[in-house]
């Protein structure tokens, strides 16, 4: 059933990067040019120090030292200015590209059909938008500038070594095979280990949330020990993986220490031979040794960052996969005449051979409210989703105002049909912002009116800052009933012709359910509505009731008609519900 969203291959990922880079070519070139210049200027320090050494070795007068000292200061200032400027430019480049990428990504994600979102599973999307975007952002913010600086430092230092004497370069390169091998050895192991560690930390967080968020239940069931044991087990797993990663990292640095020793001793031995042969000065040797010593830091950073770069590239491929995905072709545009809904002979199965709907036909006239009643598994939610266009029927058709749902563009369909389920989400931000998602141009009075319609005005006004109170994640927490009232208020503001309510009042307690039923009734006024009801009072208030059983319509009629059928399914239900009447 599940089909994860696409992941871009290498060529597609590169294409995405190029697309993002193209409008900023000048910024990229100037940023790297400035950084290169700054690094190159910085490399003048060791030869200047070497020159000082030579001056001392030649017993020159103290006044001769002034010039190199002034130059050293000048080098430092120029390098500093260049570094600051270059890093700023590179950051600007990375950050604007990142902002573009995340906006494009969200754009594509929000355009995905609900069907595609369901297929992908919530976890896939959440991890791409949360984890992958963060990984790339961190790479852009820390790894990228450091990597750029390190690589520049390495390349230019090697050039400088060659300028001193090409044989110094050869000596330093003796370490390269060890470094090459170490980097490959590390990258192979680290990616899997780090991703296992990230997963373990996420699992640990989830466990903490489950245990802490469910603390009253844990106490009621006297499962404290068992829950603490679970937290300990998850935490232990994360700690163990982290320590394994540390062991790997320290072994990595151990191998690089060997490479450092090889390079340094080779350059010193080379200096010994070259000075003996009169090819270089003592100061030249000192400069070469200092170069190599300075190379340790950038070399270690660059090799370690290879791994970060790999992880970021994998995340980038996952974002690029979505960004590159073709938007679905737009069908012929058509406008529904009104809100009349005709569902004809709908068949649907999630798994072949297990039909959920087996020939359901329902007509809703414009403005009519029809309640769907039935046991769990009767196909109520599936029917709601087919009418809302979340899924396409296996066979049969759904038309709204004379237009086939399949012929409506996604945007048109959503303007016409709204679906509210028991899944509530309060968007982080002010209460007003949350409501204006449904209608951006609504003024405060419209918001107040919508809230009043769903009986939410009292608590909304009682919030610390009224409509401007920050709600949702990290803000004021709304109760389940309040959140669902908010959903109904959004529905009123969105003002669609057709509304599908799928147990939109289910998760509130019984007192909340009543408030919500009243609110729902008001939100549905003047619209065509298909209401999946679990409380019979809600069904009783509808214009017509459809009883579903095992994917078929078994009864249909008004509350009074159905109630008076002696052995009717609905009548039996109603008697059980109101046994006392």
């Amino acid at each position, binding site marked *: 059933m599940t089909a994860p969203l696409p992941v871009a291959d290498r060529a597609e990922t590169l294409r995405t990067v190029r697309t993002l880079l193209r409008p900023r070519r000048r910024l990229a070139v100037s940023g790297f040019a400035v950084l290169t210049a700054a690094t190159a200027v910085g490399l003048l320090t060791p030869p200047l120090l070497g020159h000082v050494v030579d001056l001392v070795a030649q017993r020159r007068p103290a006044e001769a030292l002034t010039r190199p000292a002034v130059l050293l200061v000048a080098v430092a200032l120029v390098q500093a200015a260049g570094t600051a400027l270059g890093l700023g430019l590179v950051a600007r480049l990375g950050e604007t590209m990142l902002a573009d990428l995340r906006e494009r990504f*969200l754009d594509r994600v929000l355009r995905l059909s609900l069907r595609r979102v369901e297929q992908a599973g919530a976890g896939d999307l959440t991890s791409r938008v949360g984890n992958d975007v963060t990984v790339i952002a961190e790479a852009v913010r820390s790894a990228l500038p450091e990597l750029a600086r390190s690589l520049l430092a390495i390349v230019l230092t090697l050039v400088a070594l060659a300028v001193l004497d090409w044989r110094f370069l050869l000596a330093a390169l003796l370490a390269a095979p060890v470094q090459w091998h170490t980097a490959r050895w590390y990258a192979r192991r680290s990616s899997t280990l780090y991703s296992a560690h990230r997963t373990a930390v996420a699992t640990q967080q989830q466990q903490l949330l489950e245990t802490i*968020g469910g603390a009253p239940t844990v106490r009621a069931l006297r499962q404290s020990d068992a829950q603490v044991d679970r937290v300990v087990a998850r935490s232990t797993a994360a700690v163990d993986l982290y320590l394994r990663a540390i062991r790997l990292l320290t072994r990595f640095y151990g191998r690089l220490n060997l490479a450092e020793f090889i390079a*340094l001793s080779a350059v010193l031995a080379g200096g010994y031979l070259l000075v003996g042969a009169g090819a270089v000065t003592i100061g030249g040797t000192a400069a070469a040794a200092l170069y190599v010593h300075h190379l340790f830091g950038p070399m270690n950073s660059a090799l370690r960052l290879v791994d970060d770069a790999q992880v970021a590239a994998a995340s980038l491929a996952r974002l690029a996969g979505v960004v590159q995905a073709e938007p679905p072709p737009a069908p012929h545009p058509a406008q529904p005449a009104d809100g009349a809904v005709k569902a004809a002979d709908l068949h649907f199965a999630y798994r072949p051979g297990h039909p959920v709907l087996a020939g359901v036909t329902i007509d809703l006239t414009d403005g009519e409210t029809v309640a769907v009643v039935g046991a769990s598994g009767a196909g109520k939610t599936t029917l709601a989703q087919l009418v*809302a266009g979340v899924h396409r029927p296996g066979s049969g058709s759904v038309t709204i105002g004379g237009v086939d749902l399949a012929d409506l563009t996604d945007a048109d369909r959503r303007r016409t049909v709204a679906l509210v389920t028991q899944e509530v989400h309060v968007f982080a931000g002010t209460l007003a912002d949350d409501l204006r998602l449904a209608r951006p141009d609504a003024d405060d009075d419209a918001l107040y009116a919508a809230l009043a319609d769903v009986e939410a005005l009292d608590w909304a006004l009682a919030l610390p800052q009224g409509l401007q109170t920050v709600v949702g994640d990290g803000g004021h927490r709304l109760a389940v009933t309040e959140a669902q009232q908010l959903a109904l208020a959004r529905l009123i503001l969105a003002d669609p012709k057709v509304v599908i309510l799928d147990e939109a009042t289910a998760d509130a307690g019984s007192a909340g359910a009543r408030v919500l039923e009243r609110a729902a009734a008001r939100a549905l006024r003047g619209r065509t509505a298909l209401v999946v009801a679990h409380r019979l009072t809600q069904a009783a208030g509808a214009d017509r009731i459809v009883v579903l059983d095992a994917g078929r319509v078994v009864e249909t009629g008004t509350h009074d008609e159905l109630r008076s059928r002696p052995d009717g399914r609905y009548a039996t239900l109603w008697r059980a519900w109101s046994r006392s009447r």
Partner: protein
Amino acid sequence: MTAAERARNRAGGRLLRQAVAGQRRLVAVGAVLAVGHQAGEALVPVLIGTIVDEAVATGSGAALIRWLLVLAVVFAGLSACYRFAARAGERAAEQAAHDLRRRLARRVVAPAGGAETGRLPGELVNVASADAARVGAVNMAVTAGAAAFAALATTAVVLLQMSVPLGLVVLLGAPPVLLLAQVLGRPLQRRSETEQENAGHAAGVAADLVAGIRVLKGIGAEGTALARYRRISRSSLRATIRAADAQAGHDGALVAVSGVFIAAVALVGARLALRGDITVGDLIAAVGLALFLLGPLSIVTWVNGQLAQARGSAVRVAEVLDAPPAVPPATREPDRPVRGELVLQDVADGPLRVPRLRIAPGEFVGVVALDPAAGTALVRALAREADPAAGTVRLDDRPLTELEPAAVRAVIGTAQHDSVLFDDTVRDTVAGPGEAPADRVRLTAVLAGTTVDELVRTLPDGLDTRVGDRGRALSGGQRQRLVLARALAAEPPVLVLHDPTTAVDAVTEAHIADRLRALRAGRTTVLVTTSPALLAVADRVVVLSGDADPVTGTHAALVRDDARYAAAVLA
């Protein structure tokens, strides 16, 4: 600072010291080895100078080989020291954090409760993860700090031995240099921190929109949401760029200041060498050491920052660990055998007012609270989650306040309306984790009575299907049926159910109502609900109206005679 703040800070300090003391062996080993590592790093530039002096300048091959061997030994030593120091320090940090996490989890789910009071779950999770990690990281900071001081000392000794004036220039020069870089960088960095916080906002908004994608699509609000996200993303971008500029400025300042410092050391050192006070090798070593010194010095400032962060975190952790219990502790066990009689006398707690109510052993009673908050308060009082502000609740003539909270819950089982499911299989959820289903016939009856058996048939792995994090793999109605089955399967002598079927469809609810009595036959059962289907099967219904004595009667009689009741349950 107020006395309360001082007390909080003291508790935090104590916790911090405990965190280090608990790992003292690892911290000591790590510190000693880290000292070795830093000393080795300090020796490398010294050896470069020595080799230039003794081998390159003199042309002595024997000296070259001798000193290269020394260099090899130093490298081997510093490498090994680093490896085991890092492992010891990180292990100490992780173990301390792990230990705190365990204590925090234990405190939060402790029978006496109280740790959640005034704190959102997200906040507590943050304390148990980020704050615990920061407190644990003190161990790494102590290790690194010891090493940095040792490196400073080593450098000082080497330099002063070489030449007192040069040593003084480097040693007295380095701290002000670093300070200057810090002073130059501080306003920038402070700005950078707030900007960075601001910048994180875009990621949060995106995750929030995606989490609500079904809701957005349900009302066709994607376009609006995207426009809003673009705005936030752009303002976030501006903030990040300002932060990055600040950071770049700070990096540049560091480059400038340390470059000037090196130039000064080179100038002073060269003058000394020209006068013959030090050798050329000493000069090279001094320049190398001056550069090296910036490393340990920045470690010292890093340690300082870590300690400041850890202090704040330790205060938060200590506050949770020392949170007062929600119900005063008691040690007595309920009398056995349990009869299952409940008596409420003069109970008052917010909207809940019960002058007197007796529920006989084995009775099956419905309770309708006209104010839903009163129902919640009643269930919490019976579960000893919170003792009522006034009055007493007695179980078999024993006030609940005299009984140990967990022991009360062993006798009075409760399924509150907001009960959650844990990520277990359906079987373990209902029968209890790891427990063999003691009575298969009973379990089957419970599953059938709650229609969980029907649900199980639709699940991919039947009873062995995992319900997912907080039961998220299931629908609201399915979760509620499992919560009910779990409460029934535990067979407590007294069972309190709070709105057990609000998310269940009418067909299923009628089925559950039919079987509930049989499953609780002979045991006391209290149903706090307004569902007519459930109330109709109760022996009697008690109506809590918040004023006088509760009204009592059968569902049928109450519906007939009490208009407020009829309105509450049938509206």
